[in-house]
């Protein structure tokens, strides 16, 4: 196991180890946040002192398909006792997939010191570190956030369309089956919530989980460059858009490209396939094998 600082990342400060978290459990300047794909997990036990931020209840607008606004974000920060100066450390299940999603939303509101616990929830549990079912409560804080900045780290459908027309790179982080637009093998099942299957033209398929090792920790910068650069031809100066089905898995890849490899311009298209695959008239590509089969 290499330490985070030895892995050659562009911004190693955004990753902390489980050891670091264990040493900062009672640090008043640190708030630990669990964010999971599985909504039952936090209640079965979590890191002592960790609060839960649930994507559907806490970060999504309850009416629009959009994220919460500035005031709701400020209220959330107050509720979990976070000030703008505090270090917020995210961790969660499934190799930190939803932890990076929450991290991404916090960055839209300009929270400065956000980090991710390398290896996530599974690593903490496997190391036999303490867990509790006690839900902590912190004194409410006053948090002044910036208005949500959707320009730097977020992409919308019209921008994606321009991006495609300009021939700029996209990374589709879904499974190869989803990328190829294959129908699910269960008849009558919803097909990923989209009317059409396939991918955005020109997208490279790099399933998000290729960025992590078996123990859920992130691969080294060299290993990541091997995948995204040697294999897929991306460059750190590229303008890159990542997408998946609803923008959660792609926030993981956004995190990898932006913070671990230091790419200048990476945006997450959270509309993702559930928007693109339902839009009228936008271009869609299917895999070569399938086109041949259909021909």
């Amino acid at each position, binding site marked *: 196991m290499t330490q985070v600082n030895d892995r050659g990342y562009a911004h190693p400060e955004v990753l902390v180890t489980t050891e670091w978290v264990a040493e900062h459990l009672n640090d008043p300047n640190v708030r630990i946040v669990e964010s999971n*794909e*599985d*909504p*039952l*997990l936090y*209640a*079965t036990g979590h890191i002592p002192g960790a609060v839960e931020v649930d*994507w*559907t*209840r806490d970060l999504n607008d309850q009416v629009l398909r959009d994220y919460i606004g500035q005031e709701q974000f400020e209220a959330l920060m107050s509720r979990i006792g976070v000030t703008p100066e505090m270090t917020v450390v995210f961790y969660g*299940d*499934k190799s930190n997939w939803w932890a990076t999603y929450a991290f991404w939303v916090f960055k839209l509101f300009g929270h400065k010191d956000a980090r991710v616990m390398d290896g996530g*929830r*599974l690593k903490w*549990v496997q190391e036999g570190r303490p867990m509790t079912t006690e839900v902590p409560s912190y004194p409410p804080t006053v948090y002044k956030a910036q208005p949500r900045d959707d320009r730097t780290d977020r992409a919308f459908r019209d921008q994606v369309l321009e991006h495609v027309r300009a021939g700029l790179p996209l990374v589709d982080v879904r499974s190869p089956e989803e990328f190829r637009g294959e129908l*699910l*093998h*269960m008849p*009558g*099942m*919803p097909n*990923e*919530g989209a009317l059409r299957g396939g991918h955005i033209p020109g997208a490279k398929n790099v399933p998000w989980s290729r960025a992590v090792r078996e123990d859920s920790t992130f691969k080294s910068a060299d290993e990541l460059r091997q995948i995204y650069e040697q294999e897929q031809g991306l460059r750190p100066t590229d303008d890159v858009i990542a997408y998946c*089905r*609803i923008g*959660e898995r792609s926030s993981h890849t956004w995190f990898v490209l932006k913070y671990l490899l230091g790419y200048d311009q990476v945006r997450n298209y959270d509309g993702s396939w*559930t928007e693109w695959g339902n839009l009228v008239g936008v271009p869609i590509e299917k895999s070569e094998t399938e086109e041949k089969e259909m021909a």
Partner: protein
Amino acid sequence: MTERNDIPEPLAEVLEDFEWITDRRERTEMLIHYADQFKPVPPSIATPPYPEENRVPSCESEAYVWAERQDDGTMKFYFAVANPQGISAMSLAAILDLTLSGQPPEKIANIEPDIVFKLFGNEISMGKGQGLTSMVGMVKAFAKEQLNGGRE
């Protein structure tokens, strides 16, 4: 609308229990209570690596379902969840096993996959809902397959 009498009685009872739930905490506790009763597929039925045809599509916790027709004509289901932290998948698998194993395929075939939302609540995320709905869909498909004469 599926009538209560059309689906297996034990499932109808569990769904009724969940109808009374008003807050999330209570729902979570109840679902975890079922997850604690999850029993993975015995080696006599299957051992890893499990076949792709038994895998639940769209389930991020890598869940699998097997079904057998028992001598008395009822069904018996088995489940596996590869992700040790796939609590929701384990909870649903336990509920399906407890309420559907020992029931005739005719009634199991009437189950609607949207029971997932009655159990887990409407606020469940789309991705999660799809994986769990697929698990119910597979159970239902196994029952229908039996009604259509089985695979052999």
